[in-house]
């Protein structure tokens, strides 16, 4: 066997998905020698942003039609997600200073589906008072509720108004403000971004914190709480890979791992690829790089990538929008998400809109699951459907030195994925990631 790259590393990272790239970046900043490999010839793994050639190849769809425009104008996300402007992924970007490689733009509008109509999620108290989402008296109760949430501080009992959110359920909290079930649904799904109804019977605190993140994110940049990197989400793993490379990490794309090697104690100690091998103290990767006994399936997500030659109807002709269809509105348990992006975020040629409909599978007919989302899109030029099984590791990696990330969840944002990343970081390093951001250090040192 010949040495693979430099042959000896501290960590071998398999896959260049966002989680793997964040981890390789953080580890190499700490001085570890990192080798990162990916079987594809592009960065991003499951969360890559593909150009037309790679997209059509992935779906075995032949040659892309010339009418769509130039290959290089397209950066189509395989997993559609938006970033909460004040959420944990933003913190991680700031923490690692990967922000310097990227530019962002706000998502222009956030909508919710109610009673067969698409309605704007109010972005300001004034909008809330004008919104047809609620009746007049309900609006006042909604406003009182938002004020309570805005003031609420876990550490300051005087802001609690006598409510103990660690024991009170979310349902009880809504009811204590006199809010009706339609409003619960709207707040929980379109603002707290809950995926189903499970949170209603749990202590209200975590849902209230989600609502706070939503409100602060909204206040940060304006029209919606979401931001999105120009040129697509693929820029996120690419940015972290550069951080890793700048600190000495080695990168090999288009290079699959044939085998993970183990020592006599069953701990991973390297990888083989062709007739080459490299050693490391541990390996990290997404579930697709590990034998199936090390991971277990957690569900299935269907994602439908659609090319349109028009913006999504009934959303103010915006260049970028999110529409949330709360599951209960269409007789489902899980919400359906619709994301739409265009040339304004440099992910499609001028005049082409990319709409992605996604949801967690509840039955076994993928096409049926996305019908309520597709019905909102108008004429669809081309549609690609994929059903992905999601996985999580069976063990925490302490005994076999295989640290495995979980698949990306079905949600429309990264908050749950960042939790998985923080857990992965802790399992690998034994430490919590310090997420406190020094506001002054960002622009100074380059």
């Amino acid at each position: 066997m010949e040495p693979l790259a430099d042959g000896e590393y501290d960590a071998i990272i398999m896959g260049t998905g966002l989680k793997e790239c964040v981890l390789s970046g953080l580890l190499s900043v700490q001085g570890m020698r990192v080798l990162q490999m990916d079987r594809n010839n592009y960065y991003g793994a499951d969360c890559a942003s593909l150009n037309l050639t790679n997209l059509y190849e992935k779906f075995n769809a032949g040659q892309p039609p010339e009418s769509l425009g130039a290959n290089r104008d397209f950066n189509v996300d395989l997993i559609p997600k938006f970033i909460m402007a004040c959420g944990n992924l933003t913190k991680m970007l700031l923490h690692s200073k990967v922000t310097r490689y990227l530019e962002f733009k706000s998502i222009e509008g956030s909508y919710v589906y109610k009673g067969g109509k698409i309605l704007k999620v109010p972005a300001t108290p004034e909008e809330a008072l004008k919104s047809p989402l609620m009746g007049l008296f309900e609006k006042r109760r909604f406003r009182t509720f938002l004020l309570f949430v805005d003031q609420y501080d876990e550490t300051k009992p005087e802001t609690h108004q006598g409510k103990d959110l660690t024991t009170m359920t979310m349902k009880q909290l809504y009811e204590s403000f006199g809010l009706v079930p339609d409003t619960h649904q709207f707040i929980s799904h379109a603002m707290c971004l809950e995926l189903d109804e499970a949170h209603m019977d749990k202590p209200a605190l975590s849902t209230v914190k989600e609502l706070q993140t939503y409100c602060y994110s909204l206040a940060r940049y304006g029209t919606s709480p979401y931001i999105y990197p120009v040129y697509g989400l693929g820029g996120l793993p690419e940015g972290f890979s550069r951080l890793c490379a700048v600190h000495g990490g080695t990168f090999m794309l288009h290079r699959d791992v044939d085998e993970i090697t183990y020592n006599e104690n069953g701990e991973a100690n390297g990888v083989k690829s062709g007739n080459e091998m490299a050693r490391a103290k541990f390996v990290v990767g997404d579930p697709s790089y590990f034998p199936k006994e090390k991971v277990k399936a957690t569900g299935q997500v269907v994602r439908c990538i659609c090319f349109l030659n028009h913006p999504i109807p009934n959303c103010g002709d915006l260049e970028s929008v999110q529409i949330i269809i709360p599951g209960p509105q269409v007789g489902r348990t899980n919400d359906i998400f619709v994301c739409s992006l265009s040339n304004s975020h440099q992910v499609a040629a001028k005049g082409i809109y990319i709409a992605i409909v996604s949801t967690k599978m509840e039955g076994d007919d993928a096409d049926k699951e996305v019908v309520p989302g597709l019905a909102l899109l108008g004429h669809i030029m081309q549609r690609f459907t994929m059903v992905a099984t999601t996985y999580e590791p069976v063990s925490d990696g302490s005994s076999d030195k295989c640290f495995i990330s979980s698949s990306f969840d079905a949600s429309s944002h990264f908050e749950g994925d960042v939790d998985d990343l923080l857990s992965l970081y802790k399992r690998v390093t034994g430490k919590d990631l310090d997420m406190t951001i020094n506001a002054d250090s960002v622009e100074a040192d380059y």
Partner: protein
Amino acid sequence: MSNNRFCHFKLVLLGDTAVGKSCLVVRFVRDEFFEFQEPTIGAAFLTQTLALDDATVKFEIWDTAGQERYRSLAPMYYRGAAAAVVVYDITNPDSFAGAKSWVKELQRRGDQNVVIAMAGNKADLEAHRKVDFNEANEYAEANGIIHMETSAKNANNVKALFSEIAKRLPNNTQGGNGEREAFPILPQKQEARNCC
């Protein structure tokens, strides 16, 4: 008077390993040279400002950071680059062949109007020359790109190369596409809330 325009451009380095990409930039930016420069310079990017007759040009220079070794440069690297310096080593003919393939890669993946300069580095090692100056020059002319032989070691032609690039860059842009309302994320001045 508008003769004091300030332009800002991203410039990327390309070329095989060990041809002196980092040395060239360190000479240009810091006017230093180290015989045993570490393979990567450990910085996200370096900046240097050049004063021309009618404009001031600020370069934001991106080093490959070693990702050229297995041809694993991310699209992000090429994106928005107004200029590229493709470096080869005049004592190493393979690196000249490599430079030609980097030019092709750049034409495929980079912006259409990218200004390309080819630098035949290590020109101080004349006795070990393996790449003919005229051959490289003809290739450059045929492809409409700048060509100079440089020496990061004795500083010869280093500033001249960057000045030549600066002259060819459009002098009315910020580099990239000014009409987009994109923004960098900056931390909030104060963390007003415990959850934010």
